[in-house]
């Protein structure tokens, strides 16, 4: 799809529907979205667009149903979703596709169930036998990433290490499923993943990609991983790591460097009922300057930040889920 012509943009009179409208118009004829406007459809931007549009508009319409159809068509036989058409599966995109389809439908369906099973049976590689043998052989002085590798979440892709963001996405998705639809391993995986996030928190608050201490040097937290880790841990608002993370995020709220960091911070602070401020003008200023580098996920995050709190980020209970 072609880019939105400048004369059709209305960034000087911001309305809460500007970003959702942008998403709607960027949908490809096949029902999906590309990472950037006009590129071929892929899983992650399609899932974010569904989640953002649902948060604004309620019940699914034709735009959403055609997007869900696109997701159904692209699911692999194993139940995962590929990062791009015909490419290898990704844990993070499978989690987001499951979440989007589960929220879009009245109730979870086969595709979600198969995706969830695939995720719960996919373990990161750092805990496997080869890894443990290598760790045993390694001299203590050679180990310079100090973290508990028995605490495993999810990698971005199978057969790699656990990282903060994909772990948080899977946790949020599983938290939204009612217990009867969670695979038997889900509870154990959620517990391990939660402990992994606490283990990977940076000193002084926040998270980075997943290395809080390398060669004794504390890692610098980043807004994206911090926001997603906090959202995955939203059921534990009194935990010290959560409180520290929120404190770090609030410090960086005043001087946002990008639309993604502003939108994700806003979303996170709203979920934790922390004070926020109107950010619509700031987001539109960013859009006027760079068009968000034409990134579909960033447009979707801006939509989510400006809309009502989506129910998949609302309070959930381990007993009931949300859906």
């Amino acid at each position, binding site marked *: 799809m072609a880019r939105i012509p400048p004369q059709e943009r209305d960034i000087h009179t911001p309305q809460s529907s500007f970003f959702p409208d942008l998403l709607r118009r960027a949908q490809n004829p096949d029902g999906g979205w*590309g*990472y*950037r406007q006009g*590129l*071929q459809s*892929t899983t*992650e931007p399609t899932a974010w667009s569904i989640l953002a549009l649902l948060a604004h508009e309620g019940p699914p319409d034709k735009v959403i149903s055609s997007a869900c159809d696109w997701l159904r068509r692209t699911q692999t036989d194993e139940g995962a979703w590929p*990062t*791009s058409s*015909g*490419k*290898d599966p*990704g844990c*993070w995109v499978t989690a987001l596709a499951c979440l989007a389809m589960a929220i879009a439908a009245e109730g979870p369906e086969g595709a979600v169930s198969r995706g969830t099973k695939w995720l719960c049976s996919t373990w990161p*590689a750092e805990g496997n036998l080869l890894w443990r043998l290598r760790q045993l052989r390694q001299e203590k*002085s*050679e180990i*310079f990433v100090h973290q508990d590798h028995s605490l495993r979440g999810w*990698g*971005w*892709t199978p*057969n*790699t*290490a656990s*990282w903060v*963001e*994909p772990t948080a996405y899977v946790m949020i998705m599983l938290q939204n499923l009612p217990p009867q639809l969670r695979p038997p391993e889900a509870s154990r995986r959620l517990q391990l993943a939660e402990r992994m996030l606490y283990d990977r928190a940076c000193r002084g608050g926040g998270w*980075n*990609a997943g290395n809080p201490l*390398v*060669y004794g*040097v504390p*890692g*610098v937290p*980043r*807004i*994206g991983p911090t926001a997603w880790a906090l959202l995955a841990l939203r059921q534990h608002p009194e935990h010290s790591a959560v409180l520290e993370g929120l404190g770090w995020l609030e410090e960086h709220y005043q001087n946002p*460097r*990008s*639309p*993604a*960091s502003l939108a994700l911070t806003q979303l996170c602070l709203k979920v934790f009922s922390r004070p926020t401020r109107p950010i619509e003008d700031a987001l539109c200023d*960013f859009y006027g*300057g*760079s*068009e*968000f*580098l*034409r*990134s579909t996920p*960033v447009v979707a995050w801006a939509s989510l930040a400006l809309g009502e709190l989506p129910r998949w980020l609302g309070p959930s209970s381990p007993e009931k889920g949300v859906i």
Partner: protein
Amino acid sequence: MSYSNTRLVPPFHRSPSSVAIRAVASYEAGVEAVLWETLQELGPPVRDKSVLLKPNFVEPDVEGTINTHPVVIRAAREAFLRLGAKTVIVAEGPGHERDTEAILEVLRLSDYVGPLDRSFVDLNTDEVSQVSPRTHASKLKSLCLPKTVLAADFVVSMPKMKTHHWVGVTLALKNMFGIIPGNCYGWPKNVLHWAGLSQSILDINSTIRPDFAIVDGIVGMEGNGPIQGAPKACGVLVAGSDPVSVDATCARIMGLRPERIDYLRRASLLLGNIEEARIEQLGETIGATCKPFEMVPAFQELRA
């Protein structure tokens, strides 16, 4: 197009390489003039070609020691245009931070290269093609590569001169990790670590061998690089059309033995010259510019 023209040449068939070392005291000390003079001397064949500058952008960094400095990027862009390039774009897929715009904002890149929608491509969100690597040193059976990179006529690797706590140093060859898109591999691109870092560097560079390299060593990073190290004022720009010999020269300036750097030694078998005798040094000498970099304990043995 680079992919079909990949050069895998064993040492006994290879011509000597030329590498220029230029002393530049600071980013305010006439980088444009120095780089223009250097490129005129080296004469990269860019007339009527689409040039892709691949800097090293890792994280938003207000100190200016992690990422390739935008002054160097602007100077390269203007010099290639003056040499007759049809187009020059900046393209990068940061490996740690998926918020590319935050990095560009801290760098104020648009102040140096103009509006980002025309001058910059985020390789992490590009469309990809799956290609078979030209070598199979790593466990990677195929590579997803951005179409923007595959379509470029002339690829220029523009790293920062830094140490690296996993592979020793990160220079022109390691910088090519940034063309591997996060939308296929995640942030960080952890698949490459599990497939073998040194081996992946070889496979990526054998498939998309940079046509030219310009290393920003005006202020580099020593110690626990590539993110958490200390600034190192080295005061050089290093450039040439053979990325292996450019990296080997940089290693010598950093006080290291290039043949002890695993991925450089591997790359020297097929991709370029590593021996000092096969590198014609232009400009400054290694001896005059050498400023030994601090290394983490695991890489002390790289020291000359």
